[in-house]
């Protein structure tokens, strides 16, 4: 019984923590740090201790029956929230040290984490929506944290979130009027009682709602600016965990709700294609970016596209791939944002054209970003490879060959922006202005390296993740998925022993490195910067001429015609036209008293003249 009390306790502690920090933040700064840590680590610990299948806590609120509880699927996501949440919080303490309005920052930060716990522990639709909305406004507050210009990004984020959330609300209210039961269990069983139009309608609403948070095209337009504007510790959480709430929801809808539906495969196909387009286009947009955070934002959108493909295809292996990629993305994207955040903290810049040559100054950040890049690229021996491999194989075995091509193109194109990221920031020639840069303090690089080692661990022993994922998939309705600790099987009976493979790669690499270093040590020389020749023009002092500037100019020029039509333009013109319409409407209120009197009289006359049509009796 006392296990059942854990969930309300977790939520209570988490929310209390956010309020407490807000209240005490200006009073005792030292105490504030302690409070933040306690109220983040304690719930995380309790979440870790939760059994996979606790019972349900039932209670009534406002006349509705609500229930909270966990299952294997929720537990998986809750562990993700707990893990990344704690690491991001530790990172943020150091990152935000000299900033202002910290009470506000931590209120929103901790509230977001608490709300996410609430979402995964909800076993009824109302609680889910309740916490979903709290998560939305808390994250909104952080998007607008820095400056006025970010306000537009924040409002765009809120509007799209609201569209998604209200789609959810419509579906929830409609289902409730039909079944009279808000619990998820009842919702999952309702499909046989509905007709096709109803099912399509509700499913689309649900998918829209969850799709907005997962930055699926075409409702992704809020993501790049929102991720960019939010402070980096929060973006780590935002991109790493918050977007997974959308994935969480989609999983529930696609498998528990739509599970037995025969026509379901049409919706799944469309969703898979949307995922594919998202992945492809987002990757290309990432290549164009010169702002490191926006680049990573588009990269996130692309990764979420892969996850959506995996979920939508719906075979055991693809779902395993999708959830595995989701977890991996949580890890490596947070890691990347933390790394970039560290660079931002020390240099004050995120512009890829400006930064250069930081590898010697910030070696730990370099290692973090390097590991992140390798994982995103899906190259062994890190964890991303496992996920990508599973995805490819599942797509091939389910005969979605075209999607394989799309995924492959975007995966490969990803190399371009990934390389640019690490090259522009860390490699290349060193600049004098960055001479004073130091590495970030330990509360920042420890979480980064922890996450980096996790990517390595999952690359060698993916079974660590496979087990909880398989349990989660059992909840979703899949039979036993074939997995083993560090060996990947495929349907043709071949296998790769990851441990052996990685060990061999590493040893070769290390031996090669040792050999080259030994061979060339005596003949190393230092290269001067700006060994550049120009013809005719003398570049000005502040013009950045490092190799990385305009890296992909030819590519951009070639691809420009394709990317002329952005869906953002569509939304913006829609909003503009709407505002024009509203402006026309508001002129109804002319400000002239006689006009208003006229309205009254006309209204009365109309009511009398049309009374037959309106009220049924004609005067």
């Amino acid at each position: 019984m006392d296990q059942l009390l854990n969930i309300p306790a977790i939520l209570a502690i988490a929310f209390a923590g956010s309020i407490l920090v807000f209240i005490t933040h200006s009073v005792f700064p030292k105490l504030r740090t302690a409070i933040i840590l306690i109220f983040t680590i304690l719930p995380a610990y309790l979440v870790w201790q939760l059994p996979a299948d606790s019972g349900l806590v039932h209670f009534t609120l406002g006349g509705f029956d609500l229930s909270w509880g966990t299952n294997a699927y929720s537990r998986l996501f809750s562990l993700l929230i707990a893990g990344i949440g704690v690491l991001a919080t530790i990172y943020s303490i150091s990152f935000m040290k000299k900033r202002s309005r910290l009470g506000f920052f931590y209120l929103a930060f901790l509230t977001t984490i608490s709300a996410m716990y609430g979402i995964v522990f909800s076993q009824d639709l109302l609680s889910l929506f309740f916490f979903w909305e709290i998560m939305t406004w808390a994250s909104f507050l952080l998007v607008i944290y820095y400056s006025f210009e970010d306000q537009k990004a924040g409002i765009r984020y809120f509007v799209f979130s609201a569209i998604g959330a209200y789609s959810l609300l419509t579906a929830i209210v409609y289902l409730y009027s039909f079944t009279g039961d808000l619990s998820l269990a009842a919702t999952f069983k309702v499909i046989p009682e509905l007709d096709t139009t109803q099912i399509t309608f509700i499913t689309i609403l649900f998918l829209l709602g969850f799709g907005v948070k997962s930055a699926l095209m075409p409702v992704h337009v809020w993501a790049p600016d929102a991720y960019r504007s939010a402070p980096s510790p929060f973006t780590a959480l935002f991109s790493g965990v918050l977007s997974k709430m959308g994935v969480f929801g989609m999983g529930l809808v696609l498998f528990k709700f739509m599970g037995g539906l025969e026509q379901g495969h049409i919706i799944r196909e469309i969703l898979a294609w949307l995922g594919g387009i998202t992945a492809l286009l987002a990757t290309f947009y990432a290549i164009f970016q010169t702002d490191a955070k926006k680049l990573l934002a588009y990269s996130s959108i692309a990764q979420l596209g892969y996850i959506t493909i995996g979920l939508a295809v719906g075979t055991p292996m693809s779902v395993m791939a999708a959830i595995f990629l989701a977890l991996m993305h949580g890890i490596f994207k947070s890691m990347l944002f933390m790394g970039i955040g560290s660079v931002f903290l020390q240099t004050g810049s995120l512009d890829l054209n400006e930064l250069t040559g930081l590898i010697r100054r910030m070696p730990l950040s370099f290692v973090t970003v390097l590991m992140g890049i390798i994982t995103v690229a899906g190259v062994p021996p890190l964890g991303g490879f496992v996920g990508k491999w599973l995805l490819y194989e599942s797509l091939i075995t389910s005969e979605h060959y075209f999607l394989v091509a799309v995924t492959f193109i975007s995966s490969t194109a990803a190399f371009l922006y990934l390389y640019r990221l690490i090259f522009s920031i860390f490699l290349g020639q060193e600049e004098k202005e960055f001479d004073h840069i130091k590495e970030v303090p330990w509360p920042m690089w420890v979480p980064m390296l922890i996450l980096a080692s996790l990517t390595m661990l999952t690359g060698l022993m993916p079974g660590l993740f496979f087990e909880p994922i398989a349990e989660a998939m059992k909840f979703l309705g899949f039979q036993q998925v074939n997995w083993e600790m560090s060996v990947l099987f495929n349907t043709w009976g071949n296998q790769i022993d990851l441990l052996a493979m990685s060990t061999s790669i590493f040893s070769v690499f290390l031996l090669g490195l040792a050999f080259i270093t030994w061979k060339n040590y005596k003949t190393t020389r230092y290269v001067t910067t700006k060994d550049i020749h120009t013809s005719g023009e003398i570049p000005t002092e502040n013009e950045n001429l490092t190799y990385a500037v305009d890296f992909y100019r030819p590519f951009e020029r070639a691809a420009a015609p394709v990317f002329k039509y952005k869906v953002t333009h569509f939304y913006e013109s829609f909003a503009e036209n709407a505002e024009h319409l509203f402006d026309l409407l508001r002129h109804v209120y002319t400000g002239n008293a006689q006009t208003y009197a006229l309205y009254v009289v006309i209204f009365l006359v109309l009511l009398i003249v049309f009374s037959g049509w309106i009220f049924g009796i004609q005067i």
Partner: protein
Amino acid sequence: MELNFSPVHFIAVPLFAAFLLPLLGRVSQKLVTLVPGVVLLYLSVVAITLFPQAYDTPIVEIIAGWRPPFGITLVFGPLAAFLVTMITLIGFVVWLYSYRFIIREPLEKYYMLFMLLIAGSTGIILTGDIFNLFVFLEITAIAAYSLTAFLRDHNGAEAAFKYLLIGSFASAFVLLAIVILYANVGTLNMADIALRMGDVPDKIKLTIMILFIVGLGIEAELFPLNGWAPDAYSQAPSPIGAVFAGIVVKAAVYALMRVLFTLFDLPTSSHFLVVMGTITLLVAEMSAMRQQQIKRMLAFSSIGQMGLVLVAFGLGTKEGIAAALFLMFSHAVIKTMLFFSAGYLVFFSGHKNISDLEGMGREKPWTGFFFSLGALAIIGLPPFSGFWAKFYLLVSAANASHIFLIALILFSAIIEAVYYLRVVGRLYFKKFNDIEIRKTPFTGLLAMGILAIVTLVIGVYPDFIHELVLPAANELLDKAAYLQYAMIGQ
């Protein structure tokens, strides 16, 4: 000491105080500011004491010994209890805010008119006699007109004039309706009228109803009768704006609903209410988005929320009406808080336009905080009370299969989100570097704090209010029960 509380106190005490205040003003200004607070505190106590009793068996008070249907009765049932308690509590908070806010004019005038507003509004809700309803409507209206022009500036005078002009239409139509009604049923007691309505020919009944709808609809801010409202709300002093939004319009909506539900059979007008309510909502929200002045924006937002309330009433089911009452309560609390904080923002910065309020959130952190809280609450976000209000409404709408209505309501919610969050964003960025800022009065902060706590508490535990609105909704719907206890002596 046996305290004999009676519903008459709700009307008599503020009325008496209103007329006493000018006399007190000759003695001491301090008394003038304190007496209304005492009055409202006393009324709150009365309300809370009578509350359980009213929910058990409605209290019917006969005035001056004339039994109905000849005399005037006050009916203090669950609905009246809920609304009157809400009014007294909001009134008390408004007094708290006005205590240091109103400092310019002769204070007696302000507080006297304020007391008249309270007396009038509670009178509208309590009365069981239709002509008495008209009388209290007039009292409320006159006090409202005067208070609109209180700041004695050009805009205030213009706004008051518009209010007066349109309000006169309201009075005229309501009076006309009452006259025709009396001529046909021969009685002024609402319960008695309800009994005899069956004998009135249909066409005459409809004419009376239309006159009531237009007349009371003007006060209840129905579209297109609400042109006066934006001006009145924004040009009146901020606490009065709060009173209009939180008290006066609620009384007017109550009057309209009491007339429609108890005197007439609602089904004939329910689709009408839903449609007109939706139009009110949409036009108001869309107009609000284009506003430059913050108080005008809040005024349009209020009109929109009232449209939502009318839609909820129009649904005609018990849960629909319960949702309407919950919305009224939630809106009263949150809108009052918004008017208070907007009032301070405008007052301390000296600017009315939203674009000139940049950075005020940093100068006045608590005021900015309360405004932001109010903005989030009124959009309908959890964990504030507005969320539950909207949710109940949407559930009722879904049960009545009005899916398109749900879409429109949520569409307007998105518009609301945009224009409120725009203001919130502006408050916190850029430095405000105009004039020197004085300290915010503590009483004002206390008033806003109380409201914020209420909305948060109800948001986390809506059962408090939910359990109260269900019997109240029942009372409105259950005509037979109302007739039974309101018609004592027959």
